């Protein structure tokens, strides 16, 4: 049974954590992809920016959380979301809108977003240095150890406080986005524009407003994802670069333009990563007496080492592009 607990800790919980973060990131990417038709490479750095804003605010007001009994970072998260949303709209006005007005190909916007990536990275590193720092400025990270009520189980299931917050906030964000897209007027207009921008404009939808709203949502979600990731591990300025590929893979797996597909894709990629680096021989250990020797002798049954984790999203990306380029839920943009 200890092996099962090990599995829960290393795969179920770890996979849900990475999956949630990829899911929130991929939703933003897929929204931008479906409204503005380009792959937004600066999304990872918008996440870092959001987390950095939380870090700054939490350093400035370390006592803000005590009044509510939660970490200061979480109380200040809405402010950081607003700031990141503002940044996203500003970036669009300053860099992407002129390019769109020129009627360039989408790939030029991709290059522009790479430029924005570098600018954000440079700015964040200029102000924060290149080292890491914890978002728990004045609070303590709670760690819950749940012992399972079985005979002979010594290892507890370990889950930390930021992970619980992560699951809760992911759920709220996804449900909220669903209600917004299906119930509200603006959300319906967004879906109309992602289906057919010309027709949407012809039927009186203000496309500029929709673009701005998309950036606000994407920026807010990016701030959530970046902050929750930094709460779980630590804040680092180069956080973003390793997130970019899994997030794009998740958006494409889910079918570009499908927010729910992106959520599903995020969890697919997250779990695939943790399952691939998990050492399966641990699970064989209880049965070692009844298995042939060559199987138990194989010391390491992990598919890839942790240092090659980035291969997993790439492999998924290649498989999905070969097998079904529209994604599992038939996305709109190919």
């Amino acid at each position: 049974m200890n092996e099962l607990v090990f599995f829960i800790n290393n795969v179920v919980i770890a996979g849900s954590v990475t999956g949630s973060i990829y899911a929130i990131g991929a939703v933003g990417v897929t929204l931008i992809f479906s409204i503005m038709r380009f792959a937004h490479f600066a999304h990872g750095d918008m996440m870092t920016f959001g987390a950095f804003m939380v870090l700054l605010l939490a350093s400035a007001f370390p006592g803000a959380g005590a009044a509510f009994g939660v970490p200061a970072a979480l109380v200040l998260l809405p402010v950081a979301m607003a700031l990141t949303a503002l940044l996203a709209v500003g970036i669009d006005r300053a860099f992407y809108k002129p390019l769109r007005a020129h009627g360039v190909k989408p790939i030029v916007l991709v290059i522009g977003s790479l430029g924005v990536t570098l600018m954000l990275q440079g700015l964040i590193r200029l102000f924060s240095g290149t080292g890491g720092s914890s978002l728990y400025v004045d609070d303590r990270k709670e760690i819950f150890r749940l012992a399972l009520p079985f005979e002979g189980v010594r290892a507890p299931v370990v889950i930390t406080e930021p992970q619980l917050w992560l699951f809760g906030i992911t759920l709220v964000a996804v449900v909220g986005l669903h209600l917004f897209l299906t119930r509200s007027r603006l959300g319906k207009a967004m879906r109309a524009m992602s289906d057919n921008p010309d027709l949407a404009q012809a039927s009186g939808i203000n496309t500029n407003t929709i673009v701005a709203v998309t950036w606000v949502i994407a920026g807010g979600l990016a701030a959530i994802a970046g902050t929750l990731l930094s709460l779980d591990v630590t804040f680092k300025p180069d956080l973003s670069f390793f997130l970019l590929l899994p997030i794009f893979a998740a958006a494409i797996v889910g079918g570009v333009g499908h927010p729910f597909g992106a959520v599903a894709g995020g969890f697919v990629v997250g779990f695939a990563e943790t399952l691939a680096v998990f050492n399966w021989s641990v699970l064989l250990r209880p049965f070692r007496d009844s298995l042939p020797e060559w199987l138990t002798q194989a010391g390491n049954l992990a598919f890839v080492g942790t240092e090659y984790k980035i291969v997993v999203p790439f492999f998924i990306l290649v498989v999905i592009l070969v097998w079904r380029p529209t994604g599992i839920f038939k996305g709109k943009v190919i």
Partner: protein
Amino acid sequence: METKRADTVAAPSRFPLREAGLFVALLVAVLGVYAVMGGAYSTRMLVEAACYAILALGLTIQWGYAGQFNAGVMGFVALGGFSAMFFSIPVNEAFWDSELPGELGLVLLYMVAAVLMVLGATRLDRLGVPRKLRTLIAVVLGVVLYLVVINALRGVTDQIESRAGFIGGLGLPVGVGWIVGGALAGGVGFFIGRVCLGLRSDYLAIATLGIAEIIKAFLKNSDWLTRGTATVSPLPWPVPGPEAVGFTLARAMYLSVTAVMIALIFFLLSRAYHAPWGRMIRAIRDNELSAAAMGKDINRRRLEIFVLGCILMGIGGAALASFNSMFDPQGYLPLNHTFLVLVMVILGGPGNNLGTIFGAVAVYIIWIMSEPLALFLMELAVAFGEGAFGWEAPTNMDSRALQARVFVIGLLITLVLRFAPKGLLPEKVKHVA
């Protein structure tokens, strides 16, 4: 009156004022660097700029000729560098005298056999096996065989690391490594191109970004092949090294080698650009639909040009690694090896080879000179802050000052895209009246 077709009339030759002006300015800048920094340093800068020019030519045919955006130049550069290292450094006797080469060869044979078996399993439906069952068999077989092979490989590589360090090189002439480096990069480019080129151009950017990180991770962590973070040095040069003839002369000879390479590539590319093949490539870039309607095989042409660009990047990367005389997988950074090349191309003029070479040299000079400039400006800012506000500067200001260059590169990309999308020396498009 007989009217002549416009494209058969010789265009009135005009003096290329813009080109001449820009290159004279570049020459003045180079001479200025020579005067200030001395011969050895400046020649090193020129050699590196020449290697970057080869990379930039590779990117300009992908982006400028064909409109494909490669966001992973770094990976192809690193592959070229690895190949230059592997073929040119001396043979490691400790490895070849043991039984390890045989074991490694056996694992490689297993790998080939496993691939063949999985490929065979995917053809089972020809024998009447239902398609779903075939897919299931192929996937299960693939997973099991993968685990078997990877475990065998781990065993052998651990042995190599503990007993021989790493497998060493082949001790062949440097040129072999460069050519194979190009071929390796081209092979990876072929694989990526096959997957992505039929789809939206964004997907190619995403996939190349990913493969670059994977190549770097592989080279960094395969200690048995590359010594990983321990780095390999020195790599031999194709010309007499500095210890034989002195720094300046040795570097000047290396520079002449790269210059000949650039001249050759430039000549061949200009021929290709004006040939029917080049016209076809540009037709596909400018209007895919009508090119397809003319019966052009779009995906095949795209694949050709993408692989060609990757080959050039591999060769350039190999020349760069040989020149640095050190192979350090961690030294490959997206900023230095992808985005710098991108700036060179879009600033110089995508699709214009002369403009690309101009951009490569000019941007590289600016890049090298910006380091002391950034440090100087940061010192000035710190001194001002301390003097005016009593601000205590953090200790790591130097590394932060260098990060400011990242911001400048990003700003440059966005500004060029907005205000000079065709670069300083735009591609010349013949207009037929």
